[in-house]
C-alpha cells in the first residue's frame, strides 16, 4: 500500500512538519505540548487493533490484547491529562482579560 520511496517521502515530510510545529513555542507550553504529542502517538491504538485483528494463535491474541490495552491507555490518558492542563490556561486567559479591562 505505502511502499519504498513513497514511504520515505512521508517520513521526511512528517519529520519536517513536526520540527516546524515546535520551533516557535513559548516555554510555558512545553509541558502541555509534550503531553499533547504524547496523546497523538496514541494513534498506535489503530495499529494495535489491527495486530489483534490479524492474530491467529492464542499467544498472538494475548500479545495483541496487551497492545490494544496499552495503546488505549496511551490515547485516553494522554487526552485526559492534556485537556485538564489546557483547561487551566483558559481560566487564566479570562482573568487576564478582566484585568486588562479595569
Amino acid at each position, binding site marked *: 500500500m505505502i511502499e519504498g520511496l513513497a514511504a520515505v517521502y512521508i517520513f521526511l515530510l512528517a519529520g519536517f512538519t513536526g520540527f516546524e510545529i515546535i520551533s516557535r513555542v513559548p516555554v510555558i507550553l512545553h509541558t502541555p505540548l509534550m503531553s499533547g504529542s504524547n496523546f497523538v502517538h496514541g494513534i498506535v491504538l489503530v495499529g494495535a487493533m489491527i495486530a489483534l485483528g490479524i492474530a491467529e494463535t492464542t499467544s498472538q491474541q494475548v500479545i495483541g490484547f496487551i497492545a490494544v490495552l496499552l495503546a488505549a491507555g496511551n490515547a485516553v490518558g494522554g487526552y*485526559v491529562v492534556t485537556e485538564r492542563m489546557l483547561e487551566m490556561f483558559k481560566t487564566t486567559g479570562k482573568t487576564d482579560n478582566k484585568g486588562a479591562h479595569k
Partner: protein
Amino acid sequence: MELIIQISYLLAAVLFILGLKQMSSPVTARRGIHWAGAGMVVATLVTFAAEEITGNEQAATNVMLIIIAIGLGGGYAWYTGKRVAMTDMPQMIAMYNGMGGGAAAAIAAVELLKAQAAVQAGSHSSIPDYLGADVTVLAILGAIIGTIAFSGSIIAWAKLDGRLNTSKLLPQQQLINLILAVVLVVLAVNVYLSGSLNLIIAFFALALVLGVFITVPVGGADMPVIISLFNALTGLAVGFEGYVLGNAAMIIAGTVVGSAGTLLTHLMAKAMNRSVANVFFSGFGTGPAAAASADVDGTQKEVQAQDAGIMMAYATQVIVIPGYGMAVAQAQHKIWELTQLLTEKGVKVKFAIHPVAGRMPGHMNVLLAEAGVPYDMIYDMEDINADFPNTTVTLVIGANDVVNPAAKKDPSSPLYGMPTLNAEASQNVIVIKRGRGTGFSGVENPLFVADNTRMLFGDGQKVANELIQAVKEL
C-alpha cells in the same frame, strides 16, 4: 470501504498536525487538543471496519477482545488521568507514554510471531521472506525503540513517583549498558536471519532490561529530558510500526511526534546547558567534581514567618521563585493569596520561572495557572534576571538547583554552566524549605548560607499560611 478508511486516516493525520500546531499557542491550545481528539475517535471507529479485522475467521472473537481491551485500558487511563493531582502530572505523562511504546513493541511482536509461525510451518524460509526485508527491519527497529521507551518510562514514572530512589544498580553501569546494547544488536540481526522463537523472546527481554538499565542512573534533575526523549522515541516506534502495517495515519502521526519530540528534548536539554548524550551517558553529579564542591562554608540563618511577612509587606518589589517543593506542598493557592495581599499593600509582585523548574518545563506555569495567577505576572528567566538587583525580597519556595549561584561561579560544581535565576543579586532572599538537605540533584547550594539569605523552614503550604497571617496583622 477501504477508500473511506484511508480518507479517514488522512483526515485524522491532518487533525493531529493542526491540533498540535494550535497547541503551540496559549490562545488556541484548548481547541488544538479537541481537534486531535476528534481525529483519534474517527481513526479508531473506522478501524473496526478494516479488512484486516473483519476479513478473517476469528473476527468475532478478536473484535470482542478489542472492545474489552479498549474498555479496560481506556477506563483505567480515564480514571487515573482525571484523578491525578496537577503536581503528579509529569509521571503520569511518562506512564501513558510508556504504554504507547509498549503497544508499538507488542505490534512488532505479533508481526514477528506470525512470520515465525510461517517459517516453522515451512511455507517461508525466513522472517524477511514472509514480511519483506524492509518491513522486517523496521519492525525490529520499532520493537527495540518501543520496548526501551516502555520499560524506561515505567522507571521514570517510578522515580518521579518516589517509588524508586536508587540511581545505582550495578558497578560500571555504563559499560554494562554498552555491552548489552551490542548484544541486543547481535540478537536483532539473528532474529532477522534465523527466525527462532527463543531468539525473539530473548530479544524482547533484553530490550526491556536495557530500558531499565539506561533510565535508573539518570539523575532526578534530568528526568524531564528523559521523559521528553522517550516521548519522541515512542513516536518514532509508532511511525515504524505504521510502515509495518501499511498505515498512513500511524506513519505521519508517529513521525511528527518523533521529530517534534526530538526538538523539544533538545530545547529542554539546552535550557539546562546539558547535551542529550550527557544526560544519558554520565550519571548526574556522581563524578569526583560533586564531592569536591560539596563543602559550602557558612551556616544557614533562620527567620520566623512573622518577620519574613513584615519584610515582604514593606518591600517595593517581591519576586517569587517557585520550584518543585511548592508543587509537593500544594502551596500555589496560598502563594497567590499572599501575592494578592501584598499587591493590595502596594508591593509589586512578580513570578520568576526557570525553564526547568519543577519536573518539566512549564510545570510551574501550569500550577500557577491552576491557582489563578495571571499571565502578565509571570516572567521567564531571560526577562527577569536583570530585575533582581531592584528587588527588595526574593521569595524562593521549594526551588533549589535553579537558584544555585555555584552554577555561575564554581567550575567544579556539577551544575556549572546551567543558567540560573539571579536570586542572590536581590537585597534579601527568603528561602522556604522543608529541611536543610540538598536539592534533587544532591548539590549543595551556597545561596542558602549567603549573608542576605534567611531560611524559613517548614511545609510550603503551612509557611505560606503563616506569611499570610503575618501580612494580614499589619
